[in-house]
């Protein structure tokens, strides 16, 4: 086995509030290999964005890492002082946010922002950095890049802006990019362009991506492996094909069949009854048990860990019944 690029071990993210400690992410572990696109899917409040923020060291207080380790190339990065983490951010881990407007400074031209980022992390001169920036903009598909480089963010459309953000994330060739809902704010036709671009670039540069989204379609198109999160826990990790076609965990199963299908039209969608619990009252045992159609007595008492089932890992007490 090759060494993983990133490994997250027993990560726990907590919020201290005046009503006690809320556990937003509870004991999750996964590994990402170099060059792999790793999807993280879950509904809002499942803790997927927090996981991404924890990896890149941008958890907003009062959120904090309560336990666990994050290792990049075997080096612990979850307890680094701010200054060292800042160097890793951008150089080794890049970030793409949902809203391209908030990740670009509206007061500077995109050229200046690109050059600044490149110069922070490399030894390039201004001219070299600028040339590199133009190349990058061309690579992300911005027409007339040489001219557009001196434009301000507001002069770009949403899709073009997200391309600039991708260029910004890629400009010093990081090993890992965390993309948090990169296409959610975009229109469907633009969304497809951005997904295709992201996939191609990461392939070309050998960059690994953590793709955080609530849109299973995006994951199915792009990712190699996918992790399904529910109420701050990982319920299933597996190959995308496996999870989409034949999910093992009851929640993942329900999630897949709840997506309206294009090819056939049924009068009734499969639905998961109930709602995801609030962080303040996550049930004992398996967090999904009150909504689970296959709930057993022990599910109400004990939280299942991830069990290896074939190529997948599933957190379900029915693991011995599951055949993959």
């Amino acid at each position, binding site marked *: 086995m090759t060494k993983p690029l990133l490994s997250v071990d027993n990560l726990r993210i907590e919020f201290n509030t005046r009503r006690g400690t809320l556990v937003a992410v509870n004991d999750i572990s996964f590994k990402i290999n170099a060059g792999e696109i790793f999807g993280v899917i879950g509904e809002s409040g499942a803790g997927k964005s927090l996981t991404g923020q924890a990896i890149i060291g941008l958890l907003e207080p009062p959120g904090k890492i309560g336990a666990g380790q994050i290792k990049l190339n075997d080096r612990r990065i979850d307890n680094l002082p701010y200054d060292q983490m800042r160097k890793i951010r951008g150089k080794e881990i890049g970030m793409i946010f949902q809203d391209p407007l908030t990740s670009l400074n509206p007061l500077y031209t995109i050229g200046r922002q690109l050059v600044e980022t490149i110069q922070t992390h490399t030894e390039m001169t201004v001219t070299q950095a600028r040339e590199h920036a133009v190349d990058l903009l061309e690579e992300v598909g911005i027409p007339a890049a040489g001219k557009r480089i001196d434009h301000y963010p507001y002069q770009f459309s949403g899709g073009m802006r997200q391309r600039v953000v991708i260029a910004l994330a890629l400009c010093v060739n990081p090993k890992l990019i965390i993309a948090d809902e990169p296409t959610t704010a975009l*229109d469907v036709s633009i969304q*497809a362009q951005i997904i295709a671009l992201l996939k191609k670039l990461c392939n070309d540069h050998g960059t690994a991506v953590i793709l955080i989204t609530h849109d299973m379609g995006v994951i199915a198109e792009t990712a190699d492996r996918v992790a399904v999160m529910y109420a701050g826990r990982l319920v299933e990790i597996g190959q995308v094909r496996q999870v*989409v076609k034949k999910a093992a965990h009851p929640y993942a199963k329900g999630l897949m069949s709840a997506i309206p299908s294009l090819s056939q039209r049924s009068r009734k969608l499969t*639905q998961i009854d109930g709602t995801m619990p609030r962080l303040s009252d996550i049930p004992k045992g398996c967090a999904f048990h009150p909504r689970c159609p296959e709930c057993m007595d022990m599910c109400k008492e004990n939280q299942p860990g991830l069990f290896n089932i074939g190529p997948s890992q599933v957190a379900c007490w029915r693991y011995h019944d599951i055949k993959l």
Partner: protein
Amino acid sequence: MISNSKSSPLLKVTGLKQDFEVSKPLLNRLIEGQPRQFLRAVNGVDFVVNSGETFALVGESGCGKSTIANMVVGLYTPSAGKIYFDGIDMARLANRNAEMKLRQRMTMIFQDPYASLNPRWRVSKIISEPIQAFGLLKGKKAILERTGSLLRKVGLSARDGDKFPHEFSGGQRQRISIARALASEPEFIVCDEPTSALDVSVQAQILNLMTDLQNQFNLSYLFISHDLAVVRHMADRIGVMYLGRLCETAPADDLFDDPKHPYTRLLIDTIPDIEMTGRERTPVQGEIPNPMDPPRGCPFHPRCPLVQDHCKTTQPVLTSIGKSRRVACHVIT
């Protein structure tokens, strides 16, 4: 046209237009000598919604679908064109009495479950507002009973009426919105992206609920969405919009099995492939033009793979193809 159906349509919209003024303030205009500027959000749209059916409008942001929804329920006054509800011209209502009578028969469900409920009102008060506005029931007790039964109908409990909206999740709030919509006993509901703010599993719950209620009360829906998969699931007929115009209307199955207009084809092509059939997708090239300055001729021509010379100068009109489909394209006929 669809007018071959036996009953007359419940909603009929003809030549609908909506201009928004986007001029600078008066003083700036006077000093800088600029004319008033308008954005044509909807540019000559006609369609019908028959009783008991779901007609969906799909399109990307800025195509004017939500503006149409707002005009139909009377939140905007159309700049041109007519809206007939059950044969009544909505712009020519005799008095408030007639207006309220019409308003009682149609209502709307909104997109954002966090903004569509007054945060300072209890749920029972929110749901009883239409009941009181239309004078459907008299007496506190009767109204309370009715709100309770409405809450049960949408899958909540009558006790939830005492709570405030912030105590509910997004999906539950959307259920409350639906209960409020049902409170006025309408025949026709305009649904403006009712599930686009919700998670997939909750979306399934809400869509199923809406289907059940449609069957139970013989409701007609005007369903606005950008999500083709959702539209495919909900709609009987679909209208595809681009830059304020309809480019194709067809029964749902026909539209997905055999899309005619190049934009429809590309739109269907861009849907991420959840079935993983491995089909190659061709992303639509280019971006949506600025609606302030739409292209001449067919608005889709700068992005169209089939573009011909006269597409750039002449605007295509919706023409019937077969008995239930209309397409606005010079090339496809």
